C-alpha cells in the first residue's frame, strides 16, 4: 500500500519511494537520510498533533506533516 | 588632602579610563565588546583572542 509519510499512523513502518519536494527542503530531507529505500518507523506525534517523530537509519528525526507530505512511502509492516 | 585621598582619586580615574580605553581598543580591533572578556565559552569572539594568545605563548 502506498501513501505519504504524514498519513502514517503511529507504529507503522514503511520504505521511502520518492521525495517530491523542491529546493532546500528536498536537500535537507536527503541530507537527513530520507532517500528512496530508507526504512522509516513512525514513532509519535507531538502533543498538538504536529510535528511527527520518526526513526530512520538508527536515529530519531522530527519533521512537520507538511514536509512529511512530500515523502511517498510504501507500507511494509503494521 | 592626605596621601590616601590623592591615591584614591588617581586610582579611580585610572580605573575608569582603563575600562573605557580597553573597550575602545577592542572595538577598533574589531573584537566583540561583549563583557565575557573573550574567554566565555560561547562567545564567537573567543576565537580571535585565543589565536592571538596562543601565538604569543609560543
Amino acid at each position: 500500500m502506498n501513501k505519504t509519510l504524514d498519513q502514517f499512523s503511529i507504529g507503522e513502518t514503511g520504505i521511502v519511494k520518492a521525495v517530491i519536494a523542491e529546493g532546500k527542503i528536498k536537500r535537507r530531507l536527503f541530507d537527513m537520510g530520507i532517500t528512496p529505500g530508507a526504512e522509516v518507523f513512525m514513532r509519535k506525534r507531538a502533543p498538538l498533533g504536529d510535528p511527527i517523530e520518526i526513526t530512520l537509519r538508527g536515529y530519531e528525526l522530527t519533521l512537520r506533516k507538511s514536509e512529511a507530505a512530500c515523502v511517498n512511502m510504501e507500507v511494509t509492516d503494521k | 588632602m592626605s596621601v590616601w585621598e590623592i591615591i584614591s582619586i588617581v586610582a579611580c580615574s585610572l580605573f575608569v579610563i582603563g575600562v573605557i580605553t580597553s573597550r575602545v581598543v577592542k572595538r577598533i580591533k574589531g573584537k566583540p565588546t561583549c563583557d565575557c572578556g573573550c574567554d566565555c565559552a560561547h562567545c564567537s569572539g573567543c576565537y580571535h583572542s585565543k589565536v592571538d594568545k596562543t601565538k604569543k605563548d609560543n
Partner: protein
Amino acid sequence: MKKIVLAGNPNCGKTTLFNSLTGSTAHVGNWPGVTVDKRDGVYKKTPENVAIIDLPGIYSLSPYTPEEIISRNYILYEKPDCIINIVDSTNLERNLYLTTQLLETDVPVVVALNMIDVVNKNGDKIDVKALEDKLGVPVVAISALKEKGLKELMDKAYEESRVVREGTTVLTDTPLARLIDDVKTALKKQNVENPLFHAIKLVENDSMELNTHKETAPMVEEFKKTFEDNTFGKDFEAIIADGRYKYISKNFAQTVTKKEKDKLKMTPSDKADKVLTHKIWGIPIFLLVLFAIFHLTFAEDFLYLGAIFNFPTLEELGLLTEDGEPINFGVQLLSTFYDGQIASPGIFIDHIWNDLIIGNLFGWLGGLVEDSSLSQWAIGLINNGILEGIAAVLSFLPCILTLFLFFSILEDSGYMARIAFILDKMFRRFGLSGRAFMPMIMGFGCSVPAMINTRTLADDKERTATVRVIPFFSCGAKLPILTAVAGAIVVYFGVGNADLITYGMYLLGIVAAIASVLLMRSTSLKGETPPFIMELPSYHTPQFKNLMAHLWDKGKHFVKKAFTIIIASTIVIWLLSHFSFAWQFLEDEQINDSILADVSKFVQPLFTPLGFGSQLGQYGWVFVVAVVAGLIAKENVIATFATLAACLTAVVGMDFGELAIDAEDGIDAVQSMIMATGITIPALISFIAFNMTTIPCFAAVGTAKAELGNKKSFKGTLLFWFLSSYIIGAMVYTVGSWWWTTFIWTLAIAITVMGIVFRNKHNKVGRNQL
C-alpha cells in the same frame, strides 16, 4: 603550525573532543546546533604543536543555514592540513553520509568513531579495520567524553597531515560517474582546488557552486540534457544522495554487528521520552518544569509549606533581639533557610552568600573606610561610589547561578530539543519554527550567545524576528532589577508575593515576545513559515563536569563584569552626582544640584506616561539615571540605585545604620527610592517592565548589529525595542493606576489587529488579481 579541523554532524561530540584535546571549556550541550562559529585551540602532545579548529556541525557540505556555511567555507578555502571527521558510532549510517562528501575533497581525512563506549555497552560491535579498508582512510575508535583513544587519533591525524591525498568518491557505480569525471578534468585544467568535490556539487545543482563556477556550469547543463535515469529522471540531487546512501548501506553496514535485541524492550531514553512528550501530559509537564525551575530558584516559601502549615516565625519563637537581629550565630544559620517558611534551595544559597559572606565582608570593608582618617568625600566615594554598587550587583550571583544550573540541566539532558518538538505547532502560529525556541531559552542566560545561536535558523526573516525578541527573555543581568524591585514592593507596601511578581515579569516578557513576533510576521517581516526538520538527540544524565563548566563560565563572566564596567560606571555616577556644573563638591543632601540631576531632569518628562517621570517630583530623576546606566549593562540599574540611595537616604533621613549594606541590599536601596520619590506600585512595575523589554545592554546591541548584518534592519530593531518597551511600560502603568484605561488599550489593540488583518487581506486580493 598545522591546522587540524574537526568536522561532523551536529551533536556528535565535536566540541567535547575539542575541549578534551585543547583543555578548553567551550560550551557543550545535548542538542544539535550548540556551536555556531569556528573556534580554535592548540594540541601539544604531537611532535609539533598543532592548531585544532572546532566547526559548527553539518549534515552535508551543501549548507542550509548560516553557521553551516562557515564550516563548509573553512574546509574548502582555508586549507586545513587534515580533517578529523567525527562520527557518532551509535548512528553510523547518517554520519557516514557526510564522510563520503569529505572524502571528495583533497584534504587528508581521519575518521574518529566517537562514543564507541556507548556502542560496546549496548553490546554492538564495529569492525574498525574493515571500515578502514572500505573508506581508504585511517579510522580510530575514541570516546571524547572519557578521553579514550585521543592520543592515537592525534598521532594518526598528524601523520596524515604530512601526506598528500587526492579526493575519492563512492559514486563510481552510479550512472553519473562519467559526467563527474569529465567535469573534474575540466575543472582541473582551470587549476581549481578540490576538483572532484566541486565537480560533484556542480552536477548536484548546488546553488553556491553554480555561482562560483560560471564557465563550467553550461558544459554540465549541456550534458545533462542528454541524460535520463530510469528511476529518478533528471533529478540529479536525488541520484547522488541515493548513490551515497546505497553505497553506505551496502559497504559499511556490514561492519556493524548489532546484538539481537528484543524490539519491544524500551531503553531508559525511550521511557523518559514516553512521559516527557506524552500526548496529553507533554505540555503540562513542560509548564510544570518551568514553574519548578523558577520556584526552586526564587521561592521564599518552598512548596508554600509555610502558608499551609503556618509555621511560627523566628520572632514568635523568641530567637530575635529587639532590633530583629538573630540572638546568636546558630539562629543566624537557621534563618538562612527558615523563618516561618522554608526557603527554596536558590533562596537558601542566596541567604548564605548574602547574610554570611557578602554582608560581613562589605560591612567590614565599609567600616574600615569609615574609621580611617579620610575626609568625608573620600569615604563617600569609596563606600557609596564603589563598595555599595559592587555589593548590590554581587549579591545576585547565587540567584543567577541557580537559575542557570537548571537551564544547563535542561540543555544537557536532551529535553530542550523535545521542547522544541512539543512547541513547534504553537510556534508555527506565530510564524516561527520550533527551532527558534533554543535561542530564546538561551536568552534567559544572556542575550549575546542567544543572538549568535539564531544562526541555526535557516530563514532570514525568522532570524531577524527572533533576534529582536530575544532581549524580552529576561537575562541574568536583568534578574537583580526584578528581584530587588519586587522585593521592595513587598517589604515597603506589604502587598503581594515577591516570587509571584518575579514569575509574572518573566511571563510578561514571553507574552511581549509572542505579540511582537506575531506583529512583525504579519507586517514588516511577512513570509512563509520556515520548515522544521530536526534531529532529536537521545536523553542522557547531565554530566556533572559540563554543568560545573557552564556555571563557572557564567559566574566568571558576571564577576568580571562587576569588577570592570560596573565599578567604572558607579564611579562616574557618583562623581556626576556629587559635583555641580561649577565643579564644586556637593554633600549627599545637595544631590539635586548635581550635574547628573540637571541633565536627567531634562529627560525626565519623557517617562511621565510610564509613571517614573515628572510626577515623581524633585528626586524622580534617579529612575532616569538608572534606565540610562542600564544601557551600558543591565546590572548597572541596581548598582546605580545603591549608589544614589545612599544620598537619598541622607535626604529623607532614613537610617540604615552604619553603612547601607546588608542582606537585601538592592531591596533597601529601592525602598529608599520609594520613600524619596513617592513612586507608586504600578509605576514600579512599569519600571521593571520597561527595563526588561527596552534596548538591551551595549554588548547585546553590538551582537544584534553583527548578526542582523543590515544597517536598515538594525536601526529598525533599535526603534522597535524602544517603542515596544515604551508602550508596554505605559500600558502597565496606566492600567495599574486607572483600571478603566484597560478599555482604551483593548480598543487600541483591537483596532491595530483589525487594521493589519484588513490590510493583509486587501493586499492578498490585490496580488491575486495580478
